């Protein structure tokens, strides 16, 4: 029994979707971790640190993502030591390099979102923590960053959606993700309308899930959300 597509084509599509989700998850985790590091480095007093982070952000905001991905795939391996290069070619180099490129690009934007969240925290919060005997790191960890992340949450959810959709760019270097598989089936069957329709629905399911998760987080992160019902 075929529903819209024969079973083998469904299997191809879901294989692609699995790769898309994996690529997104790995790139997002890497991007978020790197964004936090960028923010901390940017916040130091050293000019070299600030400039390096600014340059990193400027590059990733001003160069097309497709170029960044191709740069990582075609150019960067040349610079890597032979051992790492051969390891990559043995271990799905397209996927790994696409994940790195996507993570770096998203990190630049996420760092800016988190930084604007940090700037929204008044200096008096910092002072209150210091007056209780917090070190700089304790102040950041317990007082400033948790509040800044709450403020940054809506833009960060937007970045996650963007990253999820941008995983399709990885098809340009041959990562067999959802868009790649869609094109493949389309070339095979010329069943253009159906197959792109299905791909659209699958992408929408992904982004809607992310949006729902984002608004759940936002509700959870609102201080005193339970009180509001009584107030």
């Amino acid at each position: 029994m075929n529903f819209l597509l024969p079973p083998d084509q469904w299997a191809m599509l879901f294989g692609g979707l699995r790769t898309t989700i994996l690529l997104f998850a790995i790139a997002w985790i890497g991007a978020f971790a790197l964004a936090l590091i960028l923010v901390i480095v940017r916040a130091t007093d050293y000019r070299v640190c600030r400039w390096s982070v600014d340059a990193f952000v400027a590059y990733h905001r001003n160069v097309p993502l497709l170029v960044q991905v191709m740069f990582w795939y075609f150019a960067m391996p040349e610079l890597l030591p032979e051992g790492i290069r051969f390891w990559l070619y043995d271990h799905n180099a397209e996927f790994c390099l696409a994940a790195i490129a996507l993570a770096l690009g998203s990190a630049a934007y996420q760092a800016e979102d988190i930084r604007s969240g940090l700037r929204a925290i008044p200096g008096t919060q910092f002072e209150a923590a210091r007056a209780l005997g917090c070190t700089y790191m304790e102040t950041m960890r317990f007082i400033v960053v948790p509040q800044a992340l709450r403020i940054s949450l809506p833009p960060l959810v937007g970045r996650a959606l963007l990253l999820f959709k941008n995983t399709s760019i990885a098809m340009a270097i041959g990562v067999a993700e959802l868009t790649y598989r869609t094109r493949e089936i389309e070339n095979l069957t010329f069943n253009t309308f159906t197959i792109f329709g299905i791909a659209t629905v699958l992408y929408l399911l992904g982004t809607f899930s992310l949006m729902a998760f984002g608004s759940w987080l936002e509700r959870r992160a609102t201080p005193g959300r339970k009180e509001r019902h009584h107030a």
Partner: protein
Amino acid sequence: MTQSVIVRFDKVNKWYGQHQVLHDVSLEVKKGEVVVVCGPSGSGKSTLIRTINALEPIGNGSLTLDGIAVHAKGTDLNKLRQSVGFVFQQFNLFPHMSVLDNVTFAPIRIQKRSRAEAETLARDLLARVGLAEKAGSFPGFLSGGQQQRVAIARALALQPPVILFDEPTSALDPEMVGEVLQVMKALARDGMTMICVTHEMGFAREVGDRVIFMDQGRVVVDTTPDLFFDAPDHPRVKRFLSDVRGEH
């Protein structure tokens, strides 16, 4: 028996650029004393108490807290600040934490005490400031007066030997001033060492042991509340008193 000195300023000077904000300040606060610091706006009162826990650096002179030189190189400020409570004009509670978490934060995270122990202490302190039933609330849902009382409980949670108040009632609506002053008066009667920058003259008269009057960065008068209010002999004090009493 002489009481032990807990805070000692010795010829402390401080500048903001060219402008001198503290001028040869020398004074002592003994254990158990309630000292009220007052004076016109810009006279250096807030700067004075903010130097005690090193929220502000000093220019020169020496300042000791419980015998420790606050501004000496090598002083562990994070440790020192645990032994002096600070209450801000704008409360500065942590808005992302419940009232209880605001009070248990420092004992748990900074002093590494157990949660159970910290919560018992916090609930006891919240009861003392009359807010036991607000433990689960968030600061954004409290009135200014309630927030300031939580801030006092938070400052007390480290069980400091001395607590500093920086105009604790100046940001409050008039009807909330009383509840905060009541808490402060109860603290004073319990023997807490307090240094309060405030314009609440009733508080100074009722529980103050000393009144320090500052003008242009100098300690102009350091006397008892009775003498300060009933027999002011300094022209600047007379003018200040008539201003705060609204006599024009």
